[in-house]
């Protein structure tokens, strides 16, 4: 189960919790597509509640990044748990994203 909570704000902060894998990644992609369609193009994904991620989950983050980029937007990540950070480094996908320790730092980076 993946829960996505829209925290609002100038740029949109989404808090994710649960598992991010081949089964739940499509939920995330649909949510991001919906937001990009509504012209929300500055997105921060708070991953502090993501307790498990696999390569399909990472793939969904890459897909979201590309959805936003294609529309002229940007996605930042923040609050990665160690298991998430470690898998991101193993797959070298940490080089694609801008990653911050907390939502405030990600928010400031957009300013």
């Amino acid at each position, binding site marked *: 189960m993946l829960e996505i909570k829209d925290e609002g704000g100038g740029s949109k902060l989404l808090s994710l919790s649960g*598992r991010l*894998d*081949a089964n739940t990644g499509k939920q995330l992609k649909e949510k991001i597509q919906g937001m990009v369609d509504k012209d929300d193009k500055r997105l921060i994904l708070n991953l502090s509640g993501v307790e498990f991620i*696999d390569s399909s989950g990472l793939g969904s983050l890459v897909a979201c990044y590309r959805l936003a980029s294609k529309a002229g937007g940007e996605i930042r990540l923040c609050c990665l748990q160690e298991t998430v950070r470690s898998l991101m480094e193993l797959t070298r996908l940490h080089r694609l994203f801008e990653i911050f320790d907390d939502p405030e730092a990600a928010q400031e980076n957009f300013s």
Partner: protein
Amino acid sequence: MQEFSLTLPAKIELLSLASHFSKEACKSLLNSSQSGILNDLELVVSEAFTNAVKYGGEGKGKVALEIKGDKQKLIICMKDQGKGFKLDKVPEPDFDNFAEGGYGLYIIQTKMDLVRYTCFKNWNVLHLTKYLNENAPGKD
């Protein structure tokens, strides 16, 4: 050797069930000092189950998961009924272009000590071994 098994329809909706089953099975096979590898084993099962469903024909067949172990090693077998593949023909992930997929087998090979793939009576079997101590037979 203690053994746990679970057979499920090849549906990606059942991934979290397979993952939960594997985590509990591994927990009961490992002692407290080995619990640090639980996350890796859960990850490996998630990758293997996803591939089994994806390439085994989602919704068509079954996926069978077996987990067994002793003090020396822990073995995970993921079986599917798809067309199968050649382990040595699977390409490396496309790291330079930040590919959305293609990391599964790479992750499995990184996290496990021994990866074998066989076909037996309509089943493709991915055998994954994790040695639990440095002196285990077969450990390099």
